């Protein structure tokens, strides 16, 4: 009797210990928060949805490659509203125990919640926001928890101005009166001044405007051969052109590479439009990615470059989480900063970050793309 009891107790104890050890061996799920602009004007949702498509595909690949480190995405829509973005960030930190965050579309929103994440010591991979100084503001706080995997406005403006000044004599600018538009206008005017050129005409337009006929008439009458398009509703500039008999070259930020713009403006009108790019579809790796996205998402996939950067942002984040192995923000941050061997789809290098540089893309990785026959390819220098 006593023997059976002792045996039963020992068996129970053994079971508990083995069970407990197995529990300890089970890696905890790492929660990665994702804040994106998923509703509102198409200028926002296009970005947010495409970036998220890339992130989701990266998660799928991670799970296929290494199912041991479980990663859970906690996805929120900040509706392009800064207050909402901030409160969602706080929710991710306090309620959801996110160990890392990826997001968002509006630079204003990123600049609003980045300091919170820096203070809370939770790593952020910002994107697809493009404001020039998102990582620069924090790089001096060693360690900086703020990274970015996206286009950088300054780089694409530089590339555009270098090309524009060499190729055209008369350059005009159309910008919106929002913070973004005014900021871009200043950077362009400053950049042209440094290159010894000036704008022949600068036209502004409120963001909610429906018709840019008046502005385009003025640009035509000023003789602008190249029009720099920095208005949120990218496609509005093209609408009045047929009836005022004006066919300038158009260049703008990477928003012009969205398939939605092609859909709305039409192949003939968008032919020859130039924009900042970081994905060359004539590159086989990029083409393979393009095919995969089409298979995965069908008609919902419409923006190769943003989806590619979303994919790379997801890749770097998930690899870093894998290396850290546990929901430890500081370990994930360190893993991010020392990451190597990344096989990026965009022009992101194998070693994207360093203690001095938290940008996936650097100046040499940004080039100009051009619409040719319904596709965006690299603009070859003439």
């Amino acid at each position: 009797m006593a023997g059976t009891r002792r045996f039963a107790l020992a068996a129970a104890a053994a079971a508990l210990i083995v069970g407990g050890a197995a529990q300890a061996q089970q890696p905890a799920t790492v929660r990665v928060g994702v804040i994106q602009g998923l509703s509102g004007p198409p200028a926002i949702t296009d970005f947010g949805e495409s970036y998220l498509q890339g992130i989701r595909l990266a998660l799928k690949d991670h799970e296929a490659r290494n199912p041991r480190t479980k990663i859970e995405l906690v996805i929120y829509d900040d509706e392009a509203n800064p207050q909402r973005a901030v409160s969602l960030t706080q929710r991710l930190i306090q309620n959801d125990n996110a160990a890392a965050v990826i997001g968002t579309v509006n630079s204003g929103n990123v600049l609003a919640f980045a300091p919170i994440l820096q203070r809370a010591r939770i790593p952020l991979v910002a994107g697809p926001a493009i404001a020039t100084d998102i990582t620069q503001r924090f790089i001096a706080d060693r360690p900086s928890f703020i990274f970015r995997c996206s286009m950088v406005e300054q780089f694409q403006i530089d590339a555009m101005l270098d090309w524009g000044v060499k190729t055209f004599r008369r350059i005009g600018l159309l910008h919106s009166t929002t913070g973004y538009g005014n900021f871009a206008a200043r950077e362009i005017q400053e950049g042209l001044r440094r290159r010894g050129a000036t704008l022949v005409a600068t036209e502004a337009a409120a963001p909610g405007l429906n018709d840019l006929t008046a502005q385009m008439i003025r640009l035509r009458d000023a003789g602008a051969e190249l029009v720099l398009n920095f208005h949120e509703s990218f496609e509005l500039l093209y609408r009045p052109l047929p009836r005022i008999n004006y066919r300038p070259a158009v260049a703008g930020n990477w928003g012009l590479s969205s398939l939605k713009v092609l859909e709305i403006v039409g192949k003939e009108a968008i032919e020859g439009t130039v924009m900042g790019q970081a994905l060359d579809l004539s590159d086989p790796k990029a083409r393979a990615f393009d095919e995969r996205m089409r298979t995965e998402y069908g008609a919902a996939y419409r923006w190769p470059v943003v989806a590619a950067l979303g994919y790379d942002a997801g890749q770097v984040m998930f690899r870093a989480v894998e290396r850290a192995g546990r929901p430890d923000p500081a370990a994930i941050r360190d893993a991010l900063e020392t990451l190597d061997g990344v096989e990026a789809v965009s022009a992101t290098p194998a070693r994207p970050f360093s203690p001095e540089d938290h940008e996936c893309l650097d100046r040499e990785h940004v080039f100009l793309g051009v619409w040719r026959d319904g596709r965006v390819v690299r603009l070859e220098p003439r």
Partner: protein
Amino acid sequence: MGATNLVQLLVGGMAMGAIYTLTAKGLFIAHLATGRMNFGQGDFLMVAAYLSLAALGLGLPLPLAVACVILALGVMGWGLERFAVRPLDRFGTGRAAGAHAWILTTAGVALIVQNTVELVWGKSSQYSPPLFSARREEVVTIAGAGFFVEELLVILAAVAVVGAFYWFLFRSRWGKDVYAVAFNPESAALLGIDVRRTVVMVWVLAALLAAVSGILVGPLVTVQPHMGLIFTVKALAVASLGGFANPLGILVGGLLFGVAEALSNYWDSAYGDLYPLLFVVAMLVVRPSGLFGEARADVR
């Protein structure tokens, strides 16, 4: 600015002006007969634009799509009068407390409508296919200036609707009923006019005018759930320009407003939308009864 540019801006401005006129006439007729109007007139326009977009997207032929939208908005207009305006009748339209509650109820309906549209179609902006041309870029050249076929046809359609509206008001029996009710509902009732039916008809008509404006405006602008308010504001401005008592004044005021908008965008592209509204404010200070209105209302 050359003559060609001027003409192009004028035509573009008149197309939008025609839309404002139609919307403002809806406000005018409701206010004429009942002393109240639909503060969600612009949002009714927005719903019509979305329904038109959906109908055309389903491949319905244009006349059928138009008929569906008009029917839907007619029902909405009836519903608005029945549930948001008629229950307030007991407050009258004088200085009694609650006499202006219709502002709140119609604005409330506008908010409900906005949120419903958001739920159904999402918050993102949409682009309407052209109504009258195969492609939006169809251009016709008249006297050296290029015009979009779409714009010209929108102006023509709006003029036709305004013409039908005038005929209704001044030539038909129903129009006389409306003016009789506007003058004095009690004496109209004594004369054998069904006041209740006339009032309902007027609100339905206002909604139908919003329907037509919504259908016509789709190809000209970006359709999104919050576009209604700015149309309501501009329609109010245009109706004020017309003095709220004179349909001809509203027509002229609407076209002027649209043209002023186009021209001011040319002169100052950053603040173009501001000047026409400032102009209306200045006009009302100088001449409160509007362009052609009398110093005293002519029907009350």
